[in-house]
């Protein structure tokens, strides 16, 4: 940062951390998941959350309180509504509140109360309808004391690493925490997985690719007892590491190469630079707090604003990187440039809302977006918090002075480029002028020729009518022209009269285009910047409606994380900057060691990618409706360690990957299944299906066709002749838009992260295996098992083609001997040789299959160009390859 002349953003002094002892303890008690304490219920702790979720909307927070009833405090319940009190302490059966919810009469619209909720209300009334402390006269705005005790809002603890016996199985602090809990249930880690299993597991997890034979040889040749650690270190240094983990980050960032919203779904041709920035940052192990700060406020760190961003971008690669990082905030759907929008302002406001959703779900792990229209139903996020956060982004996303996606692009044209471009434009303009002259001439000739079809008097009359300016034509002349529509010759129909002339003009157009094509290509960055004028005033919007502004709010953080529930406010304008500095302040707030959410959310997501499930099962919801951490101490230890270890993601990976927990076998045991069937305690490593990109990339890798080139513009996608989305340039011909194959020169075999993410065109192969379609962002992938996947593996052109290529590789590397072919096939697909019975089966299959194919000449029928040059043996080998690529051993990681 000092290199940019800025004071350090993130002074690290863990000593400043406030530690509230004891709070973590409550998390660890057995009642972790129990909604209610055993003691007598109180209004604040037990009743208010229920009423807040179900009733506040009509009986408290709304403009008008239905039935005159406000249920936000106990004494208001006692006061009651138009029909009198709604509770009678000690007498649940006489309490109207209970009667209404029990009968289902209330709530009117929403989901009804659950039986346990009703039971809680009953028990509270029966036990005297107590409160924890004297109530204020008016319902408090903002968050309550009870709200702030929720686990995820507590400071990140500093738990002691348990000292556990049998130290052999405890390799890292991660193991210490896990093994203590395992031991409590009479369980222990499974034995380490074998070396090949580990090799495949960690190679896929870190790079998204299978180990190559060379990787395998290197690993197996390492006889030291640190061979696995060496492997992890090698993989962390692999350039493919960044590609793999960038994909995870791009999911939460909602990365897409198109604007979305409209049916046209216009491409975002420069978004890929943000993708490349992420890959580079991860490969360089840029400290994650810095990485986040650049994405939230890179423009401000670079001292750029809307007026000078181009100059800053050209000033050096560091500054350009900082600007590129803000592409994070430009990932949302942005339909504001769509033609003929019925409500342009609504679309603009939606861009702001989506961006807030991306920022809050990815970093805060809270559904802050739920507070856009009203106070959050379940979490202590008042509506004003939402707008405080929104105020951070409004200087850049000012819906009243909006900039379209195009207007936000920053040109990377240099002065030299501009000069060259102007010269070329002059050349093009000359030719364009020539074309104009020709066109006028051809139109005149076409008319003269066409008029020859008319008798001389009519011809002269038409000519005279046409020569008369339209406004001065007589009625007779007008009728004459109307009755002879064919004499109205204009450029658009010239082709109907003189096709050759039209062709010639078209050729000239092509030449003009070609000349313009010689201009230095104008490159752009997709960035977020602020203008330097006074920041707009942000208002709370009633019901989230931009047409109903209410109170003005300053920028700031969440109340529940502030001091005693008072939100940290950010300066409206940072005097040291030309821009508002608000996003810089947010970046500081997010990455501050006292922020309890960000580090937890991040380490939880890393954990999820290794174990299939986070320590918190809902990675983007650390609130009341989310799941509670299964291992709160481990979560806190990891989060704190991550912060104190310089936010190094690679070191965090290494810590987890070298743990016994990660290295253990995935085999089940009767004891484990009995005592912990859900493997909540991690007594084994879960078996996981490869995700969509890893499946496609692994096929490319194994077949030998993977193009490992990194970075750059996305490889395009298009609909094929059926409408299925495949890799290819979107070129069609004819009225019926038949796809034209444009050779992609090996680009079609690049890693999936480089395939265009057009929101309206999810690549069939990836979508089938649960790659997200980006509407906003994707917090967690699903993993489905459905017949379509099977059909794709059986019959899709991609898999068939990859099988043929895989077979070709085997033939060229192993020669014609089927036995050697089978060994190599297994080795490449599974990183292991076949077992004897597998080899026998495979050889028998090859023999049967090659005998069973019909003669190629008979079945070719012109529709199987790939069969050209194929022999029954090579076809059988391709079949075997397809079977391996479709098999569970290929698709799943032990």
């Amino acid at each position: 940062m000092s290199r940019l002349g800025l004071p350090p953003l993130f002074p690290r002094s863990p000593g400043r951390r406030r530690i509230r002892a004891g709070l973590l303890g409550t998390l660890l008690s057995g009642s972790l998941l129990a909604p209610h304490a055993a003691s007598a219920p109180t209004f604040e702790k037990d009743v208010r959350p229920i009423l807040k979720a179900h009733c506040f909307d009509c009986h408290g927070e709304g403009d008008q309180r239905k039935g005159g009833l406000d249920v936000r405090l106990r004494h208001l319940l006692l006061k009651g509504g138009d029909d009198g009190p709604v509770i009678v302490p000690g007498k649940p059966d006489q309490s109207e509140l209970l009667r209404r919810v029990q009968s289902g009469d209330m709530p009117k619209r929403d989901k009804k109360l659950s039986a346990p909720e009703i039971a809680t209300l009953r028990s509270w009334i029966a036990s005297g309808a107590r409160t924890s402390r004297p109530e204020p006269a008016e319902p408090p705005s903002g968050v309550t004391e009870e709200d702030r005790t929720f686990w995820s809002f507590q400071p990140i603890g500093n738990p002691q690493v348990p000292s556990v016996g049998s130290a052999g199985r405890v390799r890292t602090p991660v193991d210490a925490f896990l093994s203590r809990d395992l031991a409590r249930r009479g369980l222990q880690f499974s034995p380490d997985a074998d070396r090949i299993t580990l090799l495949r597991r960690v190679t896929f997890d870190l790079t998204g690719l299978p180990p190559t034979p060379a990787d395998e040889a290197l690993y197996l040749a390492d006889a030291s007892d640190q061979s696995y650690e060496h492997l992890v270190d090698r993989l962390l240094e692999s350039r493919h590491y960044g590609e793999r983990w960038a994909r995870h980050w791009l999911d939460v960032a909602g990365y897409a190469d198109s604007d979305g919203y409209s049916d046209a779904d216009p491409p975002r041709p420069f978004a890929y630079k943000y993708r490349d920035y992420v890959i580079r940052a991860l490969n360089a192990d840029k400290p994650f707090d810095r990485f986040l700060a650049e994405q939230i406020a890179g423009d401000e760190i670079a001292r750029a604003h809307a007026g000078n961003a181009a100059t800053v971008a050209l000033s050096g690669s560091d500054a350009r990187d900082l600007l590129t990082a803000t592409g994070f905030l430009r990932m949302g759907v942005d339909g504001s440039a769509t033609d003929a929008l019925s409500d342009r302002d609504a679309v603009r406001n939606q861009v702001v809302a989506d961006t807030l959703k991306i920022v809050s779900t990815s970093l805060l792990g809270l559904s802050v977006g739920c507070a856009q229209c009203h106070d959050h139903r379940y979490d202590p996020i008042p509506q004003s918090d939402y707008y405080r956060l929104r105020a951070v982004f409004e200087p850049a996303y000012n819906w009243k002075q909006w900039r379209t996606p195009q207007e936000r692009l920053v040109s990377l044209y240099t002065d030299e480029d501009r000069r060259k471009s102007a010269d070329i434009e002059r050349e093009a303009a000359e030719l364009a002028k020539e074309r104009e002259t020709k066109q006028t001439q051809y139109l005149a000739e076409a008319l003269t020729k066409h008029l020859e079809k008319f008798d001389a008097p009519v011809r002269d009359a038409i000519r005279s009518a046409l020569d008369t300016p339209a406004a001065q034509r007589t009625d007779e002349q007008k009728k004459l022209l109307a009755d002879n529509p064919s004499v109205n010759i204009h450029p658009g129909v010239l082709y109907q009269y003189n096709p050759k002339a039209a062709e010639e003009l078209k050729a000239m157009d092509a030449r003009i285009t070609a000349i313009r094509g010689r201009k230095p290509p104008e490159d752009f960055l997709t960035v977020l910047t602020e203008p330097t004028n006074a920041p707009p005033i942000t208002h709370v919007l009633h019901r989230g409606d931009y047409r109903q502004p209410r109170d003005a709010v300053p920028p700031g953080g969440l109340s529940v994380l502030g001091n005693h529930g008072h939100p940290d406010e950010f300066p409206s304008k940072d005097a040291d900057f030309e821009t508002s500095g608000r996003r810089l302040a947010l970046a500081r707030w997010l990455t501050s060691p006292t922020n309890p959410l960000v580090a937890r959310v991040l380490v939880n997501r890393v954990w999820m990618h290794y174990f299939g499930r986070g320590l918190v099962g809902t990675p983007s919801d650390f609130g009341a409706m989310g799941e509670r951490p299964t291992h709160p101490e481990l979560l806190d230890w990891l989060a704190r360690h991550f912060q104190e270890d310089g936010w190094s993601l690679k070191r965090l990976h290494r810590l987890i990957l070298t743990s016994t927990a990660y290295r253990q076998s995935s085999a089940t045991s009767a004891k484990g299944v009995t005592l912990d069937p859900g493997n909540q305690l991690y007594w084994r490593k879960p078996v996981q299906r490869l995700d969509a990109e890893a499946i496609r990339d692994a096929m490319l890798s194994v077949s030998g066709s993977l193009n490992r080139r990194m970075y750059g513009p996305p490889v395009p996608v298009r609909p094929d002749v059926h409408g299925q989305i495949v890799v290819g340039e979107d070129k069609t011909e004819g009225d019926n838009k038949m796809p034209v194959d444009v050779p992609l020169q090996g680009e079609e075999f690049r890693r999936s992260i480089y395939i265009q993410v057009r929101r309206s065109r999810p690549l069939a192969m990836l979508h089938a295996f649960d790659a997200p379609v980006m509407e906003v962002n994707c917090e967690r992938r699903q993993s489905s098992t459905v017949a379509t996947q099977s059909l794709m593996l059986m019959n899709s052109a991609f898999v068939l083609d990859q099988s043929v290529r895989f077979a070709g590789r085997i033939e060229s590397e192993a020669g014609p001997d089927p036995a050697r072919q089978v060994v190599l096939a297994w080795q490449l697909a599974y990183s292991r040789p076949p077992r004897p019975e597998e080899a026998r089966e495979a050889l028998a299959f090859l023999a049967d299959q090659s005998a069973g194919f019909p003669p190629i000449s008979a079945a070719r029928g012109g529709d199987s160009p790939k069969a050209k040059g194929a022999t029954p043996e090579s076809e059988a080998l391709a079949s075997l390859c397809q079977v391996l690529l479709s098999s569970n051993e290929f698709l799943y990681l032990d």
Partner: protein
Amino acid sequence: MNGFSMPSPPGSVPFTRRRFLSRNAMGVGSVALAWLLREERLLGTPSNIPRGPQSFDLRQRDPVRPARARAMISLFMHGGPSHIDLFDPKPELSRRSGEDYSGEVTFSFVDRASKKLFGSPWKFRNCGESGTAVSELLPHFSRIVDDVTVIRSMHTDINGHEPSIWFMNTGRAQPGRPALGSWLTYGLGAESQSLPAYVVLTDPGGHPVDGVRNWSNGFMPPLFQGTVVRSAEPRILNLDPPPRLKGGPQERNLALLARLNREHLERHPGESDLEARIASYELAARMQTAAKEALDLTGESEATRRLYGLEDPVTREYGTRCLIARRLVERGVRFVQLFVNGQIWDNHESIQSNLATCCRKTDQPSAALVTDLKARGLLDTTIVHWGGEIGRLPVTENHGAAEKAGRDHNGQGFSCWVAGGGFRGGMTYGATDEFGHRAVVDPVSPNDYHATLLHLFGLDPNQLVYHQNGREQRITDGQPCRVVKEILRDA
């Protein structure tokens, strides 16, 4: 599954293959075979999270009102069938044929444009008990008129093919929105889950104008895209193996795969996801069987084959597709659309010979479909639609010699017909002016047409909403529409 088992709630049944099949027999997922997609994943969103991505599937859903129709076959005749030569007789036009037309006309091909009125060269006859007027070009159609409603007042007000096709097919004269079939399957799902819900039967002669966009799901998930059933192997993308693998070779592949997967499973006892994947191959095989059976016409009787014109080379191809359409609807497919190759109805030139050729290809099979559906008791619940996106002008498109005369585009007025599924039948509705140029009496826009169809399916065009990025999308996209109750059996 993410590879580990979720904690089972108390009393839940262990995840077994049988349970997988019972839950998933009718549901499968993704894009390639979009119709198979079901986004209710095995590891669904935890039920305590009341938000998140919308979940989509093709399971049958109840309409909001009692429905008259449960399936639809659209015989889409893009190019612009000449309504004034087929369904909409214009005596005044015939009387004044050759005179100059005084109305304002928008031409697409101005070089050949003329304002000479061009009376229909064909005779019309009142047919059936209803006395519906039919051109002599459509002898087979003339025998089903009592089951048919001819709408003579369709209009898109746009002359171009593509915008009018988009309008007729998606509700807006712009590209990229979901097709009618997408909306119906989104709203109602489908009765069969082992066949596509929305099938497109393309012409072996090539795709229609604008290609695959005609069955696009637009902003909806690919689940609601039309599935093309081709006339040659492989019939359905990804469902059928390529010819070289068909039969024995693929069976051997699957047998080896099953063995390897079973051995793998033995090394991973209790991994329910691995079991589920093995089962999913069996399900895939069932779908192959179901589709194969639906497309296999060998069981159809001689009489049926003759009815559809399968013996005649002129009608065989289109007749085959009409018969397949009936078989699909019989088996629970919701929406089937047939296209013709290129723009055969776009009779700019030599309409006298070209229009007759189009009619010979389609007349008998189209009529046979209605007759056959009726005989099988399916017409009551199946809508058949026949029509294009525009009509043709009452003036001559001039190509010199009289026999080369044609007609230019006309989006101001044209005809289509509908039958079954709650349409009254035996009537004509609406009218164009005395020359057949503009729809002037009871005009029906594409939005009215869609509203009426949705109404028959028990849906409300204003209430069938798809939420896209915070936008409420409807098939009418906010344009005015009305249910044309006058043509419904019980309005």
